[in-house]
């Protein structure tokens, strides 16, 4: 049975600077999000669902080119 105590190392380098973090947090508040970001999200949601359908349609409309056997040994 392992009785060694668990030690958790916390490095200062991996701890966010609270002052900078707060500053960035307030700067990036959702209230300040521009219409560019909002409209991109809306458009992406609409486009994301639809963009795969044309891709499949074009794949079905354009059948794969017939491949000739490389050395005449067709199965």
């Amino acid at each position, binding site marked *: 049975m392992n009785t060694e105590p668990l030690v958790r*190392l916390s*490095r200062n*380098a*991996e*701890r*966010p*600077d609270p002052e*900078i*973090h707060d*500053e*960035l*947090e307030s*700067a*990036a508040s*959702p209230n*300040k*999000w*521009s219409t*560019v*970001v909002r409209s*991109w*999200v809306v*458009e*992406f*949601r609409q486009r*994301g669902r639809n963009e795969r359908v044309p891709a499949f349609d074009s794949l079905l409309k354009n059948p794969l080119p017939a491949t000739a056997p490389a050395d005449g040994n067709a199965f």
Partner: protein
Amino acid sequence: MPSKHQPRVLCVDDDEDSRVMLRTLLALARIEAKTVSTAANALFLMRAERFDLCVMEVWLPGVDGFELCRQIRNIEPHVPVLFFASAADAADKKKGLKAGATVYVVKPDVAGLLRTVMHFVSLAVRPTGKQAIPLRRKVKDISPPFINKTAQPLSIGWKR
């Protein structure tokens, strides 16, 4: 009061709308973003300039995001790489993380992206004068910055 350097993020996305959105989003967070559309341009900039973070799409023309991530890891092993990708499958996420990505965020989770970016930027940005320590640097590699090796030995005692 010490000044802070403005964080810089490199964004790689072949979709122009996404590039505009990323620039706008990061500008709102007072983060300078450079955007490129190809892996080749991203690698050129990574070699030429300093970035605190790299945000990229998986689906890129030519070299894809996974390969780009591997190549960036060779150039800058310590810079966090975030995928902000349309590819939402678990296999894609796994592939991205295996390629060396720090975080994988699926589009259009802008809030998740921003939270992650802010987390890493706040780690990377330190007041001028302090040494910014790369995230993945090992503890044994970190030397105390306050030791002046050229200083004369300190003598203790009374002057006669």
